[in-house]
């Protein structure tokens, strides 16, 4: 027998590129429509009174009201769950609402979270200023300080949260190690994987328990629609300790249901929907769900181009006389180069941070003069985007917080698009030329 014959049977469940086109949708149940239909409706007919009661009691699956679930949104949820290798997902109106619902499903007043200090500015504000209003406190730890995550865990800590690759400093969390720390403490690890998409990294394979995304970014790609999602890995045992009574104890809001007992590997999503979506209501519109689905169809094709363009740009910037430093995990002397290779084997992402010689003034001149790159407060568009965080996304932060978040005044954040690489470089030349004589050239 040849080795090939010895291999034995292989699972033929669909693979990534196929799932990104097909998962979550069955045409034969939708009038044969090849494209996912947009169910532009708020509510759904009950067959009879018994059917209505059955849906409300979670006796049967199905839709009641589009704040809770919608068939088009459901396709997106299943699709992302399948791509992440998760058991279930809940889509939300934005990435922020996915993070908020995750925290509210996990925590109560009096609880505590350990949080990476390098996060999207909006997320920092949520954890630092808004959650304390709900009685939920956080301790921030620098992403590379793996031991720091352990030390920051308290008796009332209910989870660790972070972005795998911090924004915008490009510092990596050691996800496998930090997940062990979380699991030793009996708490879940929650990863915001917006910048990676499941094409670059599936956090569940490295110990994460819940993944959140701003789908607004690379997952959609087109920059047309706001959307977010939380995805459950299904491996976390909520019953291992008494830290999560709202998951394990009878819940008054559903006839004494215990989510963990009844739904096991999908308990978190079930609770986030049944309670969080019901009571807070940040639901995704079916039109936006459909828009995001259009993007996900080409996820791996786009991510390949994003990553190859990013690596070209890294080389270009490293050689450039106007550039003081370049931060991207593909740079060999990046402190997390080896870890990035392990966690992001398909590419290191398309977010680059670089320092422009001449500091803040040069940064402003560069941003004001590029023509192709768009100056805006988003990332992960198919178009190249640039911003100067110190005066933009992170401008609400004081000096000390800025430093703690790993930011400096000369930093430019670049989200590399999928345009022709020569055009991006030519555009940057215009920006750099202006930056070298900031007072002479302005776009005013």
């Amino acid at each position: 027998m040849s080795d090939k014959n010895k291999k034995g049977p292989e699972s033929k469940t669909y693979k990534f590129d196929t799932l990104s086109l097909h998962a979550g949708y069955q045409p034969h149940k939708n009038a044969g429509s090849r494209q996912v239909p947009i169910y532009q409706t708020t509510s759904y007919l009950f067959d009879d009174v018994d059917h209505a009661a059955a849906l409300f009691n979670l006796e049967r699956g199905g839709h009641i009201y589009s704040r809770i679930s919608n068939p088009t949104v459901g396709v997106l949820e299943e699709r992302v769950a399948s791509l992440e290798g998760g058991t279930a997902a809940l889509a939300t109106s934005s990435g922020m609402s996915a993070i908020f619902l995750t925290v509210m499903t996990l925590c109560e007043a009096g609880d505590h979270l350990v949080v990476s200090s390098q996060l999207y500015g909006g997320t920092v504000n949520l954890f630092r200023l808004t959650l304390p209003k709900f009685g939920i406190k956080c301790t921030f730890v620098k992403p590379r300080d793996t031991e720091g995550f352990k030390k920051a865990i308290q008796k009332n800590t209910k989870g660790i949260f972070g972005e795998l690759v911090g924004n915008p400093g490009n510092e990596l969390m050691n996800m496998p190690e930090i997940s062990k720390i979380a699991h030793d403490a009996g708490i879940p690890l929650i990863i915001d994987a917006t910048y990676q998409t499941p094409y670059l990294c599936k956090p569940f394979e490295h110990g994460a328990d819940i993944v959140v995304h701003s789908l607004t970014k690379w997952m959609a790609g087109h920059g047309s629609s706001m959307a977010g999602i939380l995805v459950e890995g299904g491996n976390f045992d909520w019953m291992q300790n008494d830290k999560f009574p709202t998951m394990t104890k009878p819940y008054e809001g559903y006839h004494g249901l215990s989510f963990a007992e009844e739904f096991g590997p999908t308990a978190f999503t079930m609770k986030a929907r049944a309670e969080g979506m019901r009571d807070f209501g940040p639901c995704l519109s079916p039109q936006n769900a459909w828009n995001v689905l259009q993007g996900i169809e080409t996820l791996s094709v786009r991510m390949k181009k994003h990553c190859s363009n990013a690596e070209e740009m890294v080389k270009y910037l490293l050689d450039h006389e106007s550039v003081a430093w370049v931060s991207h995990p593909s740079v060999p002397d990046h402190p997390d180069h080896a870890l990035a290779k392990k966690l992001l084997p398909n590419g290191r992402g398309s977010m680059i941070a670089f320092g422009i010689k001449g500091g803040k003034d040069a940064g402003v001149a560069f941003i004001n003069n590029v023509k192709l790159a768009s100056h805006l407060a988003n990332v992960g568009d198919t178009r190249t985007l640039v911003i100067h965080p110190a005066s933009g996304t992170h401008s609400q932060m004081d000096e000390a917080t800025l430093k703690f978040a790993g930011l400096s005044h000369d930093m430019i954040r670049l989200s590399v698009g999928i345009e022709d690489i020569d055009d991006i470089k030519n555009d940057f030349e215009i920006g750099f030329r202006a930056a070298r004589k900031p007072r002479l050239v302005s776009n005013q």
Partner: protein
Amino acid sequence: MKFKVNGDEIFASTGGRPFDKNKPLIIFVHGSGLTHMTWVLQTRYFAFHGYSVLALDLPGHGLSKGKSLKTIEDMADWISSVIDAVGYKEASLVGHSQGCLVTIECTARYPDKIKTLSLMGGAGAIPMNPELLALAENGDPKAVDLMMDWAHGPAGHFGGHPVPGLYHINTGGMLAKSRTIKDTLGVDFRACDNYKNGFEAAKKIKIPTLSILATDDKMCPVKEGKKLADLIEGSKVDIIDNCGHMMLLEEADRVLKVLKSFITTNYPSKN
């Protein structure tokens, strides 16, 4: 709910309602390596409609303590002990896959105790693919991946879970990986492979019996399910199209409809 059977603490879901000894009892028996959670879209309905429900975790499975039982015959006796342990004299049984072997054997052994029998994706024998059996006994997660592949029909492979947001293949896979694969799936597959008494047991069954089969079931094909049903006097067969072996989730509503009509007719609740 937790209770003791033969000294081991056993978990069973009561379908979201308190267990009430005044209501007729339906016991749900899961398939190889799985848990009570596969039944969530049938149990809650009956629990809310006049029945006491126990969706069991077999010993050593899901949330139940104890060691996995090694033979289908032992599991059949154990189901009878469960009925005693919760203070009932009789029950209706519902089984899926391996759970069909267990409930057939139990019904043949305890004819006075069992009032109706509902079989989903059942057959008189479930000989295992030797490679799959070896993988499971070695605790290789590939066994779970293969099982999830073969257990879902072509439609189920795309998803389309009846509960919005859930993805079939990964949810099932995670259930089967929730305890040590070798000690759950490995032991169960071996028990299925060893069990030879299914057809003989079937001939002894005289109670109302329903078989729900699915056109795309690769693990217990319709042909095998029918062969078993033919041996059971007066048994009823219902075939679900466009569906695989995990019919209780893949086509939960259609399965519930058939099951509801069968149980409420043949084992009515006065509540």
